[in-house]
């Protein structure tokens, strides 16, 4: 990093005004670590311990078959399609909600939140009611040879549904916090709409956008309930990773099931590596905004 620490002329007990006393800090960190250990790390350790119960080789071998590979590929493909769609939607919706003043804003935001409050089981049911063979549209699609339910499109729709609010909901608070002064200044200086977005707005919201995509990614890969209703659970064809995990578990193949669960957890972290890389890439800018 470019900014080497300046020589320090500080009393031993110096504390910047923008942080808390060491005791408070220590207590906060300790409470976070304890709660997360009990609620988050312990279950994760259970998953990995179950996966590695019979050794690493056994665990890796369980991922080698055709059905496992096809489940991983399907999950990655569904996620790769759902993420950009939700990101585009999220940016558009956040722009609309934070840059304009209109009536019914709370209503619109609530509509965007709605997929969270719908039980995944009901979400699946909704899609079946809309696209199932007994519905008008679904029946027509099946007749054309393009079934939606019990095929990949249904899985994509279910994934889009459950991850729908993430990006928009991450962006809205940050964009509210920032207001629109900077954009207005850029417009006054003659910049076009896209230019304002890419040079002013996007750099300001990139962290929120990234967090939104992180959550969206994790949830898209891990969703079971809604996908289970619309997938048909056909081995090697419409079985995503979570569905394969359930199948394996029910077959008493708990090593294979938990290995795939562990893999899913690791895959969710891939985006995190991306975040770390971005943090390095933008370290100077971060330092500039945070330290002066």
């Amino acid at each position, binding site marked *: 990093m470019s900014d080497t620490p300046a020589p320090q002329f500080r009393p031993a007990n110096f504390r910047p*005004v923008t942080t808390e006393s060491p005791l408070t800090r220590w207590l906060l960190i300790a409470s976070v670590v304890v709660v997360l250990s009990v609620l988050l790390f312990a279950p994760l350790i259970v998953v990995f311990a179950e996966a590695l119960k019979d050794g690493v080789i056994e665990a890796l071998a369980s991922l080698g078959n055709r059905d496992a590979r096809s489940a991983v590929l399907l999950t990655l493909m569904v996620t790769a399609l759902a993420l950009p769609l939700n990101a585009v939607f999220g940016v558009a919706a956040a722009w609309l909600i934070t840059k*304009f003043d*209109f009536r019914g804003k709370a*209503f619109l935001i609530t509509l965007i939140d*709605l997929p969270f409050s719908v039980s995944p089981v009901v979400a699946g049911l909704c899609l079946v009611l809309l696209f199932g063979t007994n519905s008008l549209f679904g029946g027509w699609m099946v007749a054309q040879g393009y079934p939606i339910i019990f095929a990949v499109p249904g899985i994509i729709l279910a994934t889009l549904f459950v991850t729908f609010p993430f990006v928009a909901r991450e962006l809205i608070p940050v964009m509210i916090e920032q207001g629109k002064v900077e954009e207005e200044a850029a417009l006054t200086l003659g910049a076009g709409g896209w230019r*304002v977005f890419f040079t002013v707005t996007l750099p300001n919201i990139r962290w929120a956008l990234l967090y939104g995509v992180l959550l969206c990614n994790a949830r898209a890969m891990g969703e079971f309930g809604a996908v289970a209703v619309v997938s048909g659970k056909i081995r090697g064809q419409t079985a995503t990773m979570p569905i394969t995990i359930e199948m394996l578990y029910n077959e008493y193949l708990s090593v294979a099931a938990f290995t795939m669960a562990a893999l*899913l957890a690791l895959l969710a972290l891939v985006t995190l590596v991306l975040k770390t890389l971005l943090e390095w890439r933008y370290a100077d800018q971060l330092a500039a905004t945070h330290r002066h």
Partner: protein
Amino acid sequence: MSRPLINRSPMPGLGLSVGVTLTMLSLVVLLPIGALLMKGASFGLPEVWAVVNTERTWAALFLSFRISLYAALFNLVFGIVLAWVLVRYDFPGRRIIDAAVDLPFALPTAVAGIALTTLYAPNGFFGQFAKELGFRIAYTQWGILIALIFVGLPFVTRTVQPVIEEIEREVEEASATLGASRAYTLRRVILPMLAPAALTGFALALARSVGEYGSVIFIAGNIPLKTEIAPLLIVIRLEEFDYNGAASIGISMLAISFFMLLVINAVQIFSRRRIGHV
């Protein structure tokens, strides 16, 4: 008060953002939910009410919403603390914790349910302590609470975190210069800045917990009137091939959640309008 539907603004991109938002919203959310409401309309409101207005359904709805509220409140407080610690403090393991926050989403809910039950069952790592103290965690309402805290864990942290990252330190310095103590600065300067994001996270965690099925089913015990959650009743109706009953409970949950979210969102927008844009 008559406000125009939309205030004139020099901001570009209104047409595009309205277009993308409404198209996606309609395709992904409104059409499927519309299908559910149509189903409800096809057999009428009295029928929906008849399904919902039973002791067992009320007990399940009350249980789902009550424990979801507790879980979301816990996540509200803990989420702010966690986000603050992750952004402002540097300590060994910070990156690992930052990485792990999203995991409750990535683990399929059933896996989470099985793992949590393994730990909190009477013969589990944590459950055995509870057993010595004479109570059970798994298979009681405590188990449901733990599962719901787990599934809602990332929301508040991940909505508050970017806001904390954007806070300019000058604000805190200014506050300190004016003689405010650190605690006062946190309470009167920082917390109000985090409030909209935290409330958003709270609303989302609450909404998500209410509908959660996969993980709760393993740890709850599922005894009618005691530990039976509302989504389980929907599944039961479906198993009876009773689509109308399932849709009725689904619609009533949807209505309650929608109303709750609407209130939270309206409070947010109203308070922001009163204070003025930051």
